[in-house]
């Protein structure tokens, strides 16, 4: 069953009087439980595509249907509620709130739910356990390594048990060892917890962890391949 259906999606930005096309008539279908890697050179439209899937940007034309909802037609408030329910986003630069502890950072999306304090605590403890950082719950981001920060960010992304995990170059700012740990974690989330993941990456090693790869160039889909991970 398709979790993501993009049909004929185009996106362009206007800078002064000039219209800059970023995506051109992209059509993609991603089945539930897939781990999709998005590759392509800088400016190819990977991050824009990810932003459209996250509902933080809107297409100029075309249809973006995720988890059965046509999100391109949602207004601001229902779109925010939809993101809170369905999307877990992992940023390249982690983007943790520096004044909050790891625990509080992970708890942040749960503040939007009706869960009790105890229930929120249980969810956060579980999420930090999955990323193997239970012992760092009271640490502030500045007290963590880059790899640990990204794992906290992953815990924040999964704590609401979202339908879709989106990762924008999640290993782009990490050393090889930490990058490997983060990718293993994402792979585990996909395989053990059946999370559908879309990951933008430049790194061919990272891309290998995905089950399918899409190559974008100048806003156009040029190739769609299955990786070795698909059969592993």
């Amino acid at each position: 069953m398709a979790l993501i259906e993009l049909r004929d999606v185009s996106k362009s930005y206007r800078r002064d009087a000039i219209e800059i096309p970023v995506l051109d008539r992209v059509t993609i279908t991603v089945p539930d439980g897939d781990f999709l890697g998005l590759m392509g050179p800088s400016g190819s439209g990977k991050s824009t595509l990810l932003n459209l899937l996250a509902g933080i940007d809107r297409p100029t034309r075309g249809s973006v249907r995720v988890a059965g909802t046509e999100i391109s037609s949602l207004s601001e408030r229902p779109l925010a509620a939809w993101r809170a329910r369905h999307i877990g986003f992992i940023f390249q630069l982690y983007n943790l709130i520096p004044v909050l502890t790891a625990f509080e950072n992970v708890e942040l999306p749960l503040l939007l739910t009706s869960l009790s304090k105890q229930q929120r605590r249980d969810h956060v403890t579980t999420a930090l356990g999955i990323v193997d950082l239970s012992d760092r719950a009271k640490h502030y981001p500045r007290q963590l390594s880059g790899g640990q920060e990204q794992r906290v960010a992953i815990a924040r992304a999964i704590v609401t048990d979202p339908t879709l995990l989106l990762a924008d170059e999640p290993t782009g700012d990490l050393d090889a060892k930490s990058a490997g740990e983060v990718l293993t974690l994402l792979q585990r989330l996909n395989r053990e917890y059946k999370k559908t993941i879309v990951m933008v990456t430049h790194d061919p090693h990272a891309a290998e962890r995905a089950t399918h790869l899409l190559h974008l160039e100048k806003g156009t889909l040029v190739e769609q391949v299955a990786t070795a991970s698909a059969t592993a």
Partner: protein
Amino acid sequence: MKYVNLMVKSARRSKRRTALTVLSVAIAVFLFAALRAVLDGFDAVAAASSSQRIITIRSTSMIFNMPASHTDAIRGTAGVQDLTWANWFGGIYKDPKNFFANIAVDPESFLRMYPEVVLSPDERRAFLEDRTGCIVGDGLAKRFGWKVGDRIVLQPGIPYYGTQDYPFTIRGVYRSTSSAVDNQSMYFHWKYVDERSVQKGQIGWFVIRVADPDRAVQVAEEIDRRFANSPYETKTDTEKAFTAQFANMLGNLNVLLGTVALAVVITTLFVAGNTMAMSVRERTTEIAVMRTLGFPSATIFGLVVGEGLMMAIVGGAIGAGLARLTINGEFLGLSGGFIPAFGVGNRNVAVGLALSALIGVLAALIPATMASRLKIVDALRRVA
């Protein structure tokens, strides 16, 4: 409630900046409460003024005296039921810093005229019988630790009272049952100071009780008419008008103090608003991240306003609390005589807190709007 921790932690991000913002609001509320307290003091006196009492002073200014011969003429005016008179003595107790009102009065008629001045029968008798006796307000007695029987000495502050000291014996400590009479003054026999005065038989002001309050204005006009075209023309007003006139001698207090308070509040509003805007600008990425996580614009708006409100209310509580503790006529030794007893009451504390809340909300409005209208993709791209 679940967002309070988030707001507190955001406010503590830059402790120095938050402390300075809180301090600026505290100062604004402190000044506001202090200025309001003084105005309220005058208002309270005016409100408590007797409608039966009118006051006669020299038409030129109340700092000039009138001859004692005015007494009979005033007493003979139709509609006058009773009268008393008094002089500002301006005595200094040990040091000019120990300012308090000390007034020479005709004891019997003074106590008749002001039933608000409450003495025990023994104190009353002792005061009337002792030519060098005096009575002091319980606030003044508390201020200097005086008690009945104590001897105090005043140096004359006005040249025509000579240069020699005036000793007094405290014969009573009065309490006041109305704002029309403060509890920070000292009263003594007019005759005692008059007989040592270089200019004998001089009176500073008359207080007159009219038989019919509805005819107070006509009686006042009649009194002034009696002395028209004489070397000592008079100006007679109701007690309320007299109090207001005294306040006006200090300038149009309401406008003056009101303008100062408004200027302080507006300045604080800009300071707090600028600080909040800086704080929001620094958090552009964080706000974009929160929006990505699903925080609606309205919640982001509420968080920023809540943060501003929280800082402002803390500042307001500090300012109002400090004003409550320190702005007090007795504590500062400023009230007495024509300066009313004043202090920061519960109402002013509540108004101060409400004002701080208003500052917090208004200061946060623009930054909160900026934060809630942030375009997520643009904000994330700006940093990445």
